[in-house]
């Protein structure tokens, strides 16, 4: 049962990573990051069955931080959208010195 859960978690994480790397839409990339977080959450929960309650406690932290991060991230995306009228990350090339 654990193996299957971890395989699923790994697959979800891989999908999330590839999404971040390959997609150009900022919203989609953002969703993919959420996917990565939740893949990790799945692994935590699965392992907590064998290693104790700590994993589930950690999941709560991750969810809290993810909520905060979603708020900040979406705010950034919205302000970028207001400026460029697009959310295609290929247009965002000012992140350098």
């Amino acid at each position, binding site marked *: 049962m654990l193996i299957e859960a971890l395989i699923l978690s790994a697959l979800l994480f891989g999908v999330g*990573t590839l999404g*971040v*790397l390959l997609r*150009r839409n900022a919203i989609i*990339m953002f969703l993919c990051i959420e996917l990565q977080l939740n893949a990790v959450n799945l692994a935590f929960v699965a392992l907590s069955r064998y290693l104790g309650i700590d994993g589930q406690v950690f999941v709560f932290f991750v969810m809290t931080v993810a909520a905060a991060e979603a708020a900040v991230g979406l705010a950034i995306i919205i302000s970028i959208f207001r400026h460029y009228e697009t959310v295609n*990350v*290929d247009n*965002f*090339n*000012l*992140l*350098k*010195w």
Partner: protein
Amino acid sequence: MEGDVHGAHGAFEPFLPGLVILLPLVGFLLNGALALAAGRRSAEAVRQGREPDFMHGHERPLTHRLPTWIGPGVVGLAFVVALINFVRMMGADLHEPVIRTYWTWMATGSLKVEAAIQLDQLSMVMMLVVTGVGFLIHVFSVGYMGEDPGYPRYFAYLNLFVFFMLILVMGASFPVLFVGWEGVGFCSYILIGYWFTDREKADAGKKAFIVNRIGDFGFLVAMFLLYTTFGTLNFVEIFDQAPSVLVYGGGLVTAVTLLLLLGATGKSAQIPLYVWLPDAMAGPTPVSALIHAATMVTAGVYMVARTSVLFALAPAGSLAVALIGAATALFAATIGLAQYDIKRVLAYSTISQLGYMFVGVGVGAYAAGIFHLMTHAFFKALLFLGSGAVIHAMHHALHHTHSQADPQDMRNMGGLRKFMPITWIVMWVATLAIAGIWPFAGFFSKDEIIWYAGARAEGPYGQWYTLIWVACLAAAMLTAIYMTRLMVMTFHGRNRTGEKEAHHLHEAPPVMWVPLVVLAVLSVFGGWVNVPQAIQESFLGGFGLLPMAEWLHHWLHPVTGPAEEILTRYAGGFAHHAPFGGGELLWAVLSTSAALAVVLVSARVVSGIAYKPAHEDVEPTGLRRVLYRKYYVDELYDALVVRPVVRLSRFAWKIVDQGIVDGVANGLGYLARAFGWIATLFQTGSVNTYAFFLVVGVLVVLWRVAF
């Protein structure tokens, strides 16, 4: 013996000895403040487009009247305080130096140096000479420098010099002595370059300073060696321990004495470091009298006498001192024969006489060295001040007719005795004194040195001492020649200043000639404080009429005694006859009659030469040119030392510093910039690239953790 000499018994109670040092410092501060005020005022005048030179036709401002009293005043007061101490010391029975400690100068680890002064018979003699002769020269300066716009500055420097010179002779340890040593060197530098707007004079100051640095290096290393050996630098402790700690003739003490000698050759202008002194004549003439004749240049002699215990323990070091002294005495005297600049003749004469002092302290006759130091201070200060009076008169005469002729060139003088009779007489007194004619001061002091040099000829290194003795005798004859030549060229024969100029020649004012007369009296009687026993009892001493036989010798005995004891123990005492037989009296009679004969003959010979004024004269040829060109030593040093050093410095500047050091520093900078530039290639500004590198980074970290 000592009890008899020192008379009444009792402890020595010093009378405010710190005041002797402090007074010139106060003078320096006051005159310095006046100099700053004067400088501010002339700067203001220049700003307003007025002439800064107020001297002609105007009353002198307060800043230029006060130094007349402050400058000589503080030195005179210091002399009075020193005199009181001297009288008290005479009345006391002093065997150990009295140390006055004021504060701890530095306390680092095991080294503790106190700001302390030492009062003993040697420092007493030096204090009296420095403040006494110094006072007379200050008074003379009032007349000589009166019209100089930098009058207060001049006295500030002169007071500062006396201050440092007193530290030098009164310091109770090597570091304190060294403070004075460096201080007088600095004052010498600023006073040689006193007229600093003249490039040549400023350069002469620099030369003096730089040449002295070479000697100071030796002095410093000697101090380090002494510290590592004794763990202290105080005179009393080192000299007490030295005979038991150091091996007689051992390598350590020989090294220390040779290094000290290097320091002394720099300060006292001996071979090989004498070259700065003739150039130092660029300074005002009273400065030459005070610093470069009477006091500072004798610091090396004082230092050897002060460290006599060490030199007595190092026979090779002592021999080196005497050899260098004898070589310098002879060498400089020959150059003095062919110079035309009156001050240059005196400069080489000073170098030569300093050589005698070195012979004195080198052969172990420390009292004789100090004796000659003292009498030389009298008659050489007199000669310099007299030449100053001559230059002063010449300068005024030439100034009146706007002549461009050199007021210091003796070829432009001649026949001056008509115009300045007092100067003429006192200069002859000094000449007879320096030539060693009985009964003038120089006769007793110089003769004693020559006698002791000969009396060493039977101990270790006997042949060397015979050689030194012969060189000293020869140099004594040369002294008589070049001094007579100077006198005849300057004061006798036809006047060569020119018709119009001669009308403006006049005797120096009283403020200048009174110090000359005082010094002349000292040049006559100064030698009587140390008449040798053998001479005092003979007809030369009026069969016992001359007072105070060997007084100075006995007076200095508490200081020089330990060294003399060591010499007697290891090297044997002085012989009682000269190398080729004859007693002290015989040689004294011989040398003074020979000197007198030389004076008379050379006066006749020089009178017979028809000198032309400098601008009509041609450069001498043959041997005379070699002498006139000072054996080309300056050129030799220029080729062997100065130019290689300049080349090395240029190499260090252009190749090592600008090439290698700057190259490495700049290269590192360029390298960092290049790496930075490469790093900017990764910084595309695109979010995707960053995400990609993030993932790659995580994978790398994971890979490192897993395997």
